[in-house]
């Protein structure tokens, strides 16, 4: 450990770690420790339970059925997103397509609709339920998670490769599969794994579609059967699956960066004329936006305008108080995430070492653990260790902080990382102290990126459902939980305004992602 602390390339000059760095390291260790509470305490709870009780809970035939449902849904959605997302990205980047920019924006719109809102739209509109209902909703909502990385990778891929492959005897399709696909595979598959992770942790959509998977089983074991050992045992299985997926995703990302460095796209791309398939491009591009945005929004608006269902109406006061508690809680969650992320991200950006890597990977726990697992584990933790915090806003904000920590750490690391050390050296030679450099240079350049990430975390936390359901103080409702409650009792008219507000909230982060995607298109055009 000592060697790891001392020998890092970023640590030029300083032979002995400075006090500031020791403090930073210590805070990062504490932050990573706090972030691992949900995982650690879940294991403590399962290992502390009667081994027989855990085994019986896991060995029931129903567990097998749940596992089959979960894996089946995850694989099916991931495969569908792979095909649809790659096709969408291909059309957006390679085909001759009128209105490319507009289509790029349209194809990312599904990100603006939380999957349980889309599910609500479909449930209120049609009799589709069960596996196919969950499959439909989760696929169309998650396609952009594959489309965006595949699109970025396709733009990086060198078009000459396909030209060369064709002169060496490959048809157009074979040329794509043998030369371009291997280049975009890591990025695309990493996107597919994110989809799988999302499906695994999704609670709202599967519950509304009445399709029994692990998340729903954990929820009902805890809330209606009051079987905590079963809930904990099922959570552990879910957590293991999530960790496996995150591990695989990180590995793929690593390989992607390895391969990307050797090649640069130089030749200009010639758009492929689709000929008699021209009609197919708009069809492929609009499947997900129509099913994820247009259909649910149309249904919502129909209920909202009151023609379909006038029996239950919503009080504006309820909506306002729910909105207020949602904003407060998510702001608290974002603050927690930032507090935990700063030391970990700073350490990772400036002092890379084995320790910083271990601490950084602790922050991924929030990515791997489904919201329901984090919620449940923190319920156990607060009941056993800090009863005063049980069902308090603090514990819920802490859950948000842990869940969205990876986003915040990534942003801190990237924002600080983009400040070239050379700039800091220059500031030092111009007479600034170490602390002066930090406030006058580094923090000034890094803040906008970090601030955007904090906002993103807050907006994402506003949509969070499963952990909120378990941890919210009695009597407090957020937009998401109210929507859930009203949809459960089929009060679609009353639920519609909540859903609309949530879509408005979710549109922020989605637009941010879209802007990046479109900006790349513009850059391309200008450089061409």
């Amino acid at each position, binding site marked *: 450990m000592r060697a790891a602390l001392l020998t890092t390339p970023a640590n030029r000059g300083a032979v002995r770690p400075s006090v500031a760095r020791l403090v930073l390291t210590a805070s990062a260790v504490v932050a990573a420790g706090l972030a691992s509470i949900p995982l650690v305490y879940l294991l403590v709870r399962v290992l502390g339970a009667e081994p027989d009780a855990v085994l019986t809970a896991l060995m029931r035939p129903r567990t097998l059925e749940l596992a089959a449902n979960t894996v089946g849904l995850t694989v099916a959605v991931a495969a569908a997103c792979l095909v649809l997302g790659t096709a969408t990205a291909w059309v957006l980047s390679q085909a001759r397509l009128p209105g490319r920019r507009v289509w790029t924006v349209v194809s990312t719109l599904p990100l603006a609709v939380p999957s349980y809102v889309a599910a609500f739209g479909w449930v209120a509109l049609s009799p589709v339920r069960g596996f196919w209902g969950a499959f439909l909703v989760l696929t169309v909502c998650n396609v952009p998670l594959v489309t965006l990385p595949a699109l970025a990778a396709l733009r990086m891929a060198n078009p*000459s*490769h396909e030209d060369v492959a064709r*002169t*060496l*005897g490959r048809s157009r399709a074979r040329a794509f599969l043998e030369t371009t696909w291997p*280049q975009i595979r890591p990025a695309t598959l990493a996107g597919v794994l994110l989809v799988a992770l999302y499906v695994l942790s999704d609670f709202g959509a599967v519950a509304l579609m009445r399709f029994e998977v692990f998340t729903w089983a954990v929820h009902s074991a805890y809330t209606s059967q009051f079987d905590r050992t079963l809930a904990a045992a099922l959570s552990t299985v879910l957590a293991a699956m999530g960790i496996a997926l995150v591990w695989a995703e990180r590995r793929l990302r690593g390989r992607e960066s390895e391969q990307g460095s*050797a090649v640069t796209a*130089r030749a200009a791309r010639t758009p492929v004329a689709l000929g008699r398939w021209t009609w197919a491009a708009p069809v492929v591009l609009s499947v997900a936006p129509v099913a994820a945005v247009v259909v649910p929004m149309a249904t919502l608006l129909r209920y909202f305008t009151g023609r379909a269902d006038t029996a239950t109406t919503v009080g504006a006061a309820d909506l306002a108080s729910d909105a207020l508690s949602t904003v407060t809680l998510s702001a608290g969650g974002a603050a927690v995430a930032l507090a935990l992320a700063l030391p970990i991200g700073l350490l990772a950006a400036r002092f890379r070492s084995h320790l910083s890597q271990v601490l950084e990977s602790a922050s991924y726990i929030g990515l791997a653990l489904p919201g329901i697992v984090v919620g449940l584990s923190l319920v156990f933790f607060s009941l056993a260790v800090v009863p005063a915090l049980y069902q308090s806003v603090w514990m819920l904000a802490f859950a948000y902080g842990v869940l969205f920590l990876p986003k915040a750490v990534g942003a801190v690391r990237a924002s600080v990382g983009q400040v070239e050390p050379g700039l800091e050296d220059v500031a030092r030679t111009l007479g600034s102290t170490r602390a002066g450099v930090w406030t006058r240079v580094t923090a000034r350049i890094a803040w906008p990126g970090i601030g955007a990430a904090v906002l993103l975390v807050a907006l994402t936390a506003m949509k969070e459902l499963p952990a909120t359901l378990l941890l919210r103080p009695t009597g407090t409702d957020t937009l998401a939980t109210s929507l859930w409650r009203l949809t459960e009792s089929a009060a679609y008219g009353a639920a519609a305004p909540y859903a609309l507000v949530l879509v408005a909230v979710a549109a922020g982060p989605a637009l941010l992602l879209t802007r990046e995607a479109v900006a790349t298109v513009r850059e391309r055009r200008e450089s061409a």
Partner: protein
Amino acid sequence: MSELQVRKVVAAYDGAPVVHGVTFTVPSGQLAAVLGPSGSGKSTLMRVIAGLHSPLEGAIVVGDRVLTGPRVEVPPERRRIGLVPQDAALFPHLDARANVAFGLPRAERAGSRPDELLTMVGLEGLGSRMPGELSGGQRHRVALARALAPQPDVILLDEPFSALDASLRAEVRAQVRQVLRRTRTTAVLVTHDQDEALSMADIVAVLDGGRLVQVGSPTEIYESPHSRWLAQFVGGAVVLPGTWTGGAVTCALGEVPATLGLGETAHAGDRVEVAVRSEHLVLERPDHASDGTVALVRNVAYFGHDAVVTLDLPGVQDPVEARVIGGSPVVPDTEVRVRVARPGIAFAAERPA
């Protein structure tokens, strides 16, 4: 035999015409350079030959096979035309050997052929290197071996050396030329670099604005360019306005002997422009010579083997450049006498715009 014929090719790019009826023939086993400034349509022409772009009109014929023509469009994978793109474009997920083997029939991929090809381009033993582990020059040679592997009738080189730094470029050019000569492959080299075109090609086709300006051997292109633009574009020339006196031009350099460019007609007393190669200007110290025009030396750029001297000529607005053998005792801000050693070429003066 695999003679390449490009016949009256007209091609457009995104609706805008970029190649206007280009025709030339590359005899079997020879290397033709398609030379033109950027935007001259040379890359589009190359994509048409490869079958990667459909022309509006015209034909591509190799030997007796019509590859592109009326109602004929052989797809690129069945043309037997190889391609070496600008940046080598090695498949990043395959090692050098697998890159070379890519175009071989499945049965031959595992055999000794890929290694033989790597040896031919001077890369024996590097088959297991990934593209990222090869130097720029090595990557180009792998790309060449890859293109040659299926024994194509024609090979296309699309500005293949522009990504290399100058010191490496000459070396890789020579190696590529040697390999192509040994394998007797008909080749088309697309380039904007006139040194590359003149030094490598048997035939040079100069393209400007999508039109063919001139086709000929490197010597023909250099010695008797058909237009003033070509004289300046290839090799660089001093162009001065003057008056045709029949066999000579009276201009700022005095009475310069000249011949009329191909297809040009002029009567004595007509306004013309005379193009003189920079290296045909001879500079002498004023006290050593009595003939020639007196000019002021503005700058001397010394390159070792030669030097470029920038001169102010009396009555000429823009400075002119003379290329002299290195070590000439010419000093900036002094006067020299300028003489023309070889006849220039006269072109009818461009009408004032």
